[in-house]
């Protein structure tokens, strides 16, 4: 009978669509664990030009031909304070340079913080948040690794680890030498 066939066909179609939906839903990670891939990866790093908190002029292009970690932080952010020793370790090593951009914080407070916890790399003031927007930083702490040719190769969120960065750099350099 025609009516029953239509009912059967629609039932099968609906069943299949719902099954697919269930599969899609079942294989999703929780939203909180999802990380947005930065669109900047393997693109030229956005320029950073401005003044450091000490008042000196700064331009990222001075590191051309070297590895740089660009870190975004603020002293009011807990995880930023936690990752600070790792940045100090990186800056003391000789694989990469470290540059920090201050995210909506008072330069005086930042200076005091660096005095207390160490850190002698350029810290750039970003009062209008322009650099932060250029890098598309949603939430600090966040760091970007920039290769000697000036492209962004990796993004680290919610805390950076010195060892992971060193390992990543040596894997890239190894590939480059081969």
């Amino acid at each position: 009978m025609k009516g029953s066939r239509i009912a059967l066909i629609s039932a099968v179609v609906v069943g299949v669509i719902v099954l697919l939906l269930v599969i899609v839903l079942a294989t999703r990670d929780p939203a909180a664990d999802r990380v947005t891939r930065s669109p900047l990866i393997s693109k030229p790093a956005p320029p950073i030009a401005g003044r450091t908190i000490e008042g000196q002029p700064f331009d990222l292009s001075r590191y051309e031909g070297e590895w740089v970690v660009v870190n975004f932080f603020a002293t009011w952010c807990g995880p930023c304070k936690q990752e600070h020793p790792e940045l100090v370790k990186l800056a003391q090593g000789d694989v990469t340079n470290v540059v920090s951009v201050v995210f909506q914080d008072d330069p005086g407070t930042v200076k005091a913080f660096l005095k207390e916890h160490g850190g002698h790399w350029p810290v750039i003031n970003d009062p209008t948040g322009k650099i932060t927007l250029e890098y598309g930083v949603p939430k600090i702490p966040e760091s970007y690794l920039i290769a000697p040719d000036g492209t962004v190769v990796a993004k680290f969120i919610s805390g950076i680890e010195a060892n992971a960065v060193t390992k990543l750099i040596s894997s890239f350099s190894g590939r480059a030498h081969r």
Partner: protein
Amino acid sequence: MNAALGRGGVILAFISALGGVGLLGYALLTKQRALLTQVTRFVGFVAAGAVLAFAAMERGLITRDFSMQYVAEHGSTRTPALYNFTTLWSALEGSILLWGLILAGYLVAVTAKFRRRLTDPLVGWALLVMLVVAAFFFGLMLGPANPFRTLSTVPLDGPGPNPLLQNHILVAFHPPMLYLGFVGFTVPFAFAIAALATGRVGEGWLVETRRWTLFAWGFLSVGIVLGAWWSYEVLGWGGYWMWDPVENASFLPWLTGTAYIHSVMVQERRGMLRVWNLSLLCATFSLTILGTFLTRSGVLDSVHAFSDSTIGPLLLGFFGLVVLVSVGLIGWRGDRLRAPGRIDSPLSREGAFLANNLLFAAFAFVVLLGTVFPLIVEAIRGDQLSVGEPYFNRMTMPIGLALLFLMAVAPALPWRKASTETLSKRLIWPASIGTAVLVFAVAVGASGLPTLVAFGLGGFAGAAALRQVVLATRRQGWRGLVGRTNGGMIVHLGIVLIAVAFAASSSYAHQRELVLAPGETARVGTHSVTYLGMRTIVDSAKTAREARIRIDGGQVYAPSLQRFPEGTSEVGRPSVQSGLVDDVYLALVEAPANPGGQARVRVIVQPLVLWLWVGGGLIAVGSMLAAFPGRRRRGTEPVSAPVTVAGPAPTPAAPDEVVREPVGSSLRTATDP
């Protein structure tokens, strides 16, 4: 002690539900109808277990029994009594407990209502389905959503519920209302499945469940409006609806449920749309489960996601099961579902209901697609995108306007076929009022095509509903206000108010962020706000820094930033001056560092917001009037039990006999026997 009692209650309810399922299944399959009446005991034990578990949890909360993990994590000695009571539904496990209690309540109500007909297999199957659902939810409470876990080391105090859930009275009403609606749809769903299982897919089960459906729908509607009100009063961004996944999760079953309560009338009168109506009921119930999954599993970003947990996969599995069983049954019974009728003219009441259903189905589809689309794209493409408020507003606006138009025209349409003359006669006054509203709106400076169209159609639809109510009361006195059609018109008035208020408030909001020194005055729209100074208020639960702000030189309002002892950051608490014409919404963004400093205040002036809540109230009243008991026929008298008939049996009435030409008005046609 409390934990043991509660655990005992959950186990009792779970085992009784399983036992009831076993008993009913056995009795139905072996056709021992006398045995079916025994289900009352099992239902009684499910209810007793649910009440015991609920009471034990409340006792634990009230006595601050921190040996219970739930109390230790969500309760606190500082929380005021009311919010301490509502802490039960402030997190996942307690919410499931509330769900279980309400479901047990519905089980008892259904058993009591049908106590004389328990031997009827249709009722037996329906109770079986409800008991399966109950067994699932009490099973959740035994496993991943156990509210009665205990702690070996007992803390002295807890953090209290989420700060957002303890600073507004609506927290006491919104979740229970919403759950009464969500869970209430289990009843018509159970009867739909029962009708499919017994093969009695005629109209009997519809009539039996229509009042249950109306109750569930009314509670769900009120629950949604209260939720919007809560967002407005608490969240501090000045809006009440942002198409957040959790909001959509509650809205989806409302859409399909609304479609159902309209299309069911076509089936009652014309015997058509059987598959469609069954599908709508199954969709409504499965969407409540899907909604709970989306809310509770944490797969979607949401401002309302107050808890994550591991019950996601179970809910998803249950959703899949519900859909597969429903779809399978409908496919299997397809031959019996074939509609004998047809629709004579698109210009008829049934034609309008068809159009209504098309629009509601499209509405639900857009909302569902928009909600899950980011997940689908991520699964296929691997990267992410967002679907947000602008998408939903743009896509649903034309559907909403078309629905308003239908609301205006449909009540004036007779069943079967309308002539243009009657239609023109019945619609001229509502249309004139709609035009007058439009002209008035333009005269007071309203602009924007969609908004103006919404105003005009709102006036049109409102006048059409009013006309029906006036005609009915003139003819029937107070009875003209009760019954499904008349109550439905009151509901329509509520919906029109909400639609017009939504259009106005979202189109003509003025938002300014002001930085004010004490004594300074600023203007926003037609209002002036004067910042007077700060004040700090400390109570047992929190410390509030209030900015005292005078609006229009009159009353002083105090938006505040509240710090709860365990909370890491401050929670804003807006303050609103509500008026018939517009609301002035104040939110303190940044308090001054020193008392004489400047405060940063967000001021939003939005017109007609108050009418959203009035509309919600009208919906509540209208739903109650619609469910008001009148003289009714009984749908499934025992006479409609399965009997094998060899030859053509005498039939009570051919479908067409029921249809009378509406003389003067079509008001009585749907309600009267």
